């Protein structure tokens, strides 16, 4: 095992896949000469060259559209959206084209495309640059949506995404890039569509993913001091959504809190809670709580922004409420 940051994990996955398969290439804004606005592709341009590390105009529909076309003819593009907020400028190509081209033409087209998009709030970037709209994309059949919360999963899931013959939206959280974790030295992939128990416990099940995994683990440590042991299930993929570990955990704890960074309404928590009630109603001993972002556009002011985002103490409070 090697102890590396999330940024290094993503970067290594890209590098190793590009070394492995000449059909893999990167395109996006400032991915080349600049080295990536989050420095994920630093050094790539010099090593792989301008053909495989392609700087694009600031034109998201062209970036995703061109990536789709290249994928349709057999390449394996990894398109980077500087932030997931810019995905809205390419919304048609993501949800109307990439997600539908296979089925709409009776299976004639494959779209082995990865869209890397950086999301999340907490950096005082204002309302348009701080969103966590993962659930919006997970709504659409035909897409896969992946959002890792650890370096190990980031590297394994990104490799799996690049090798997948389906379009994958790979969401990275901007404030997780410095997070460190152990990563296997040998080549590995992490299966898309498999949730994972990241912490075992007997009292309450926390269902979460991405940045909120980090906060949930910290909350779990605080709760442990009070003798409360939570089990944390990390969804890792929002579509396909693997409910089996969630339900299995719930059958043990009979209580659940769902933690997500996005807005509560029509969110990941709404879906997970609905599935729990549909599939394991008899095992639920207390109303399920959701911890999520306040229903406001995120303000610039740091205090107000943090008020709107889920905090560790919110998770602690919610867990105590369901006990």
């Amino acid at each position: 095992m090697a102890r590396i940051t999330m940024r290094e994990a993503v970067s290594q996955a890209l590098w190793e896949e590009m070394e492995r398969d000449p059909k893999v290439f990167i395109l996006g804004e400032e991915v080349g000469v600049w080295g990536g606005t989050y420095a994920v592709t630093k050094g790539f341009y010099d090593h792989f060259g301008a053909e495989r590390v392609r700087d694009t105009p600031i034109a998201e529909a062209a970036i995703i559209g061109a990536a789709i076309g290249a994928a349709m003819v057999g390449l394996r593009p990894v398109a980077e959206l500087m932030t997931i907020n810019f995905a809205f400028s390419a919304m048609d190509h993501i949800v109307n084209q990439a997600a539908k081209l296979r089925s709409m033409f009776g299976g004639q087209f494959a779209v082995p495309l990865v869209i890397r998009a950086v999301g999340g709030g907490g950096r005082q970037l204002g309302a348009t640059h701080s969103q966590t709209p993962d659930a919006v994309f997970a709504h659409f059949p035909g897409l896969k949506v992946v959002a890792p919360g650890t370096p190990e999963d980031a590297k394994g899931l990104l490799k799996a995404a690049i090798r997948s013959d389906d379009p994958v939206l790979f969401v990275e959280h901007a404030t997780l890039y410095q997070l460190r974790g152990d990563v296997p030295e040998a080549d590995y992939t992490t299966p898309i569509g498999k949730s994972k128990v990241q912490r075992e416990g007997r009292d309450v099940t926390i269902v979460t993913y991405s940045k909120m995994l980090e906060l949930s683990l910290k909350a779990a440590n605080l709760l442990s001091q009070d003798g409360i042991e939570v089990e944390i299930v990390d969804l890792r993929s929002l579509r396909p959504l693997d409910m089996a570990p969630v339900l299995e955990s719930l059958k043990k704890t009979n209580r659940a809190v769902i933690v997500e960074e996005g807005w509560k309404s029509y969110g990941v928590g709404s879906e997970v809670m609905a599935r729990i009630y549909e599939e394991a109603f008899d095992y639920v001993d207390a109303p399920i709580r959701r911890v999520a972002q306040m229903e406001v556009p995120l303000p610039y002011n740091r205090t107000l922004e943090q008020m709107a985002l889920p905090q560790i103490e919110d998770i602690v409070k919610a867990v105590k409420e369901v006990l």
Partner: protein
Amino acid sequence: MDKQESLELYRQMVLIRRVEEEAAQLYQQGKIGGFLHLYIGQEAVSTGLVAARLPQDRVITAYRDHGVAINVGIPARQVLAELLGKATGISKGKGGSMHMADVNRNFWGGHAIVGAHLPIAAGLALGDQYQKSNGVTICMFGDGATNIGYFHEALNLSKVWNLPVLWVCENNLYGMGTTVERASAVSEIRQKAEGYCMPNERVDGMDVLVVRQAALDALAYIRDAGGPFLLEIVTYRYRGHSMGDPERYRKAEEVQKYQENDPIGIYRRYIIRDGIASDSELDGVDSAVEDDILDAIQFAESSPEPAPEELFSDIYADETAY
């Protein structure tokens, strides 16, 4: 072109016309659902373009796609079966009128969101450039698509990256019911290519030989120079935008004027004038097309509906993802 090729262009145009006429009938009988956009009047455009391509050249178009489907060689049977939503349709009945494609014939669809296939076409061409193929992507779209952002993003990208794309604007003078003059800041669409320093030409789309020659020249330029070219082809659709068009935006006399300048009629006169074939030979082509049409309708009507399990197939390559 030799005689056989000349007659093949004629056959394709007649076949498109007849497929579309029958489609209109089937629509009125309630056998075709959804939207139906007919290509009648525009046959010379796709026929001339596809005739100019090499096998490695890809074609991608918008939702008015039945013409290209016929030109690339999809049998009329599979076109009509798709319109009827049958399992034997070219897209297994899942795409319908606006979503026909045939990868084996290098036809990349049939795309229903105006302008959205232009960035995708840039990507197809990027694939060829990346893999060092000398194929060109022929991307067709209507005049209405040139006012949307996708058009401009795609043209710019194709020029910046020198992608082998032939951009083809089929200017049929109306975007649905809005004239080009009411929707576009410039009345000649080719002018928009000037903004991207892209060579361009505007030609008559009612003459299949003019279209074919313009496409041959443009394709040669792209293969030689390695960058994109925009060809504006001025044409006219005789029928409404779709079957539900009340056509309040134009007068019957205008349609009639263009019908007197019919692409099939023009080409038929050329063939006879130049002694390529006689009237009776052309009548023979017409009646062979008629046989083809009768067979295609019979095939489409008697084909099975898609099996219920088809609802869940073809959504992901990874079937465990569903």
